[in-house]
C-alpha cells in the first residue's frame, strides 16, 4: 500500500460522498419540514436510477437529458406521495413510519415486476479517467461530485434567497411560528417532497453509473443518508454536505485498510457513537 493508494481512496470516497449528499439532503429537509422520516427515500433514489435506465438504455435518450427528466418525474412522484399518502395521515408519526415503510416495499416490487432480470448498468457519464501524479480518478466520479455540489449550491440559494425557500427554512425551524405568518404547511410539504425526491433521483443516476442497478439498491442508500444526517447534524445543509463527504472518505479508507466489509460496518458504529455522545451531530442545532 502506498501513499498514492491512500490519495486514490480519499478521492474515490469524496466522489461517492456526492451521491450520499444528494440522498441525505432530501431526507434531512423532509424530516425538518414535515417531521417525517421518509423510509421510502432510498426507493425514490432507486426509482430515479431506473427511470434513467429506462429512458437512456431502453429508449435511447441522451444520458444527461435522461438524468434531467428523471429528476423532474421523480420530483412529481414525490408530490404525488405527499398528496395521496402522507397528507391524509395528518401528522401521526407512527402512521408515517408504517406508510413509508410499506411504500418502500411497494416501490421495490413494482420495479422488480416492471423490468426484466439481469445486470443493469447505466452508461458512463464520462468515459476514462484523469491522471494526477500517478493517481487515477475516473471522470464519471468527478462528474458525480461536481453535480452533487452544484445542486447543493442551487438548493442553498433557493433556501436563503427566495420567498418560498425562506418559508421552507422557517417551517423547519418553528412550525407554529411559520403557520402564524400565513405559510400554508401543505404547500411546504409538497415542495419539500418534490425537491427532496428530485435530488435523490439524481443521486440514484450518479450511483447507478458507478454501480449496477437493482430494485433493492435503495436500502443501502437510505442507510447512508441516515448516517450522514446523524454525523452532520439534523436540519443542517452544511452538515449534510460535510457528513456525506466524511462518510464517503471514511468508507473508502476503511475499505482500503480493513477490507470492504469494515467500510460498511464502521460508519454504522460511528452513527451509534454519535447518537450517544453527540446527538446533534457536527453542525446540528440544539
Amino acid at each position, binding site marked *: 500500500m502506498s501513499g498514492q493508494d491512500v490519495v486514490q481512496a480519499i478521492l474515490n470516497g469524496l466522489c461517492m460522498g456526492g451521491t450520499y449528499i444528494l440522498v441525505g439532503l432530501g431526507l434531512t429537509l423532509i424530516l425538518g419540514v414535515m417531521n417525517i422520516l421518509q423510509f421510502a427515500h432510498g426507493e425514490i433514489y432507486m426509482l430515479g436510477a431506473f427511470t434513467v435506465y429506462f429512458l437512456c438504455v431502453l429508449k435511447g435518450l441522451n444520458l444527461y437529458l435522461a438524468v434531467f427528466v428523471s429528476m423532474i418525474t421523480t420530483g412529481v412522484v414525490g408530490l404525488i406521495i405527499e398528496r395521496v399518502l402522507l397528507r391524509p395521515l395528518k401528522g401521526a408519526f407512527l402512521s408515517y413510519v408504517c406508510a413509508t415503510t410499506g411504500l418502500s416495499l411497494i416501490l421495490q416490487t413494482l420495479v422488480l415486476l416492471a423490468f426484466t432480470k439481469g445486470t443493469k448498468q447505466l452508461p458512463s457519464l464520462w468515459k476514462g479517467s484523469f491522471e494526477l501524479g500517478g493517481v487515477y480518478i475516473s471522470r464519471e466520479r468527478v462528474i458525480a461530485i461536481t453535480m452533487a455540489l452544484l445542486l447543493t449550491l442551487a438548493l442553498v440559494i433557493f433556501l436563503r434567497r427566495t420567498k418560498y425557500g425562506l418559508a421552507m427554512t422557517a417551517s423547519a425551524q418553528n412550525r407554529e411560528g411559520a*403557520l*402564524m405568518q*400565513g405559510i400554508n404547511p401543505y404547500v411546504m410539504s409538497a415542495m419539500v417532497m418534490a425537491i427532496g425526491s428530485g435530488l435523490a433521483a439524481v443521486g440514484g443516476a450518479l450511483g447507478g453509473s458507478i454501480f449496477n442497478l437493482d430494485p433493492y439498491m435503495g436500502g443501502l442508500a437510505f442507510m447512508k443518508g441516515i448516517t450522514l444526517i446523524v454525523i452532520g447534524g439534523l436540519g443542517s445543509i452544511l452538515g449534510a454536505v460535510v457528513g456525506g463527504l466524511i462518510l464517503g472518505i471514511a468508507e473508502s479508507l476503511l475499505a482500503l485498510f480493513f477490507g470492504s466489509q469494515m467500510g460498511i460496518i464502521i460508519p454504522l458504529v460511528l452513527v451509534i457513537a454519535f447518537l450517544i455522545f453527540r446527538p446533534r451531530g457536527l453542525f446540528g442545532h440544539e
Partner: protein
Amino acid sequence: MLLEIRNLRVRYKGAEVLKGISCEVEEGSIVTFLGANGAGKTTTLRAISGLVAPEAGEIWFDNKRIDGLPPQKIVQMGIRHVLEGRALFPYMSVLDNLKLGAFLQKDRSRIDQTLKDIFAHFPVLKERQGQQARTLSGGEQQMLTIARALMGHPRLLLLDEPSLGLSPMMVRQIGKIVRDIHERGVTVLLVEQNARLALGVAEKCYVFETGSIVASGTTAELVESDLVRKAYLGL
C-alpha cells in the same frame, strides 16, 4: 363587533379546557384576558387563530365565521397571533424573520415601506437586522415577534404573554408598544399574567377561571371589584 366568540368549547386530551365561553372585541379597542395558568386564556387565542379545533361554539371575525378554517386563511383575513414563547425562527436573521411576517403581502413597495416604519419604531431591530434571532435578548426577541406580526398589517393582534420573563423596565416598554400599536388603529387582544400591565393598557377585560369567564367589564369597573383586587392586584 370585530371579533365575537359564542359559547366556545374546547376539549384537550379528554378534559374540557373551555366550557362554553362567550366574549367580544370591538374594533379599535384593547381587550385583555386575566386569569390563572390553565384557565383557558391561551386556548381561546389558539382557537381564534385556528391552531386548536373547537368542539362546539362559533367564532366570528368581521361578520365571517372563522372556526374550522386553517390558520393560513385566518392570517389572511387579518388576524395575527403572537404566540407564547415567541416562536421566532431562531437560526434566521432578524431581517428574514421580518420578511416572513410579510409572507402573504404581495405589494413589494408596501412591504419595504412597512419595514422602514418598523425599523423607525424599533431601532434596535434595525441595528441587529443581520444577527440570528436567537442571539437577541429576551426583550428584543419579544419586540421582533411583535414587529414580525405587524409586517402583515393585522386588523386584530392577539398577544400571548408578551411580558413573560422580561425585566420590569422591558415590561414597561412592552406596555408602551401595545399602546403604540393601538394608536395605529390595530385592535389588540392581550393575554397577560402581569395584571398591572394588562389593566393599565386595556379598556375591557374578561376574567377566566378554569375554562369559564367569571367576570367581565371595563377595566375601570373591574379594578374596583373585590375579585380582581384580591386575586390579581394583591390589594
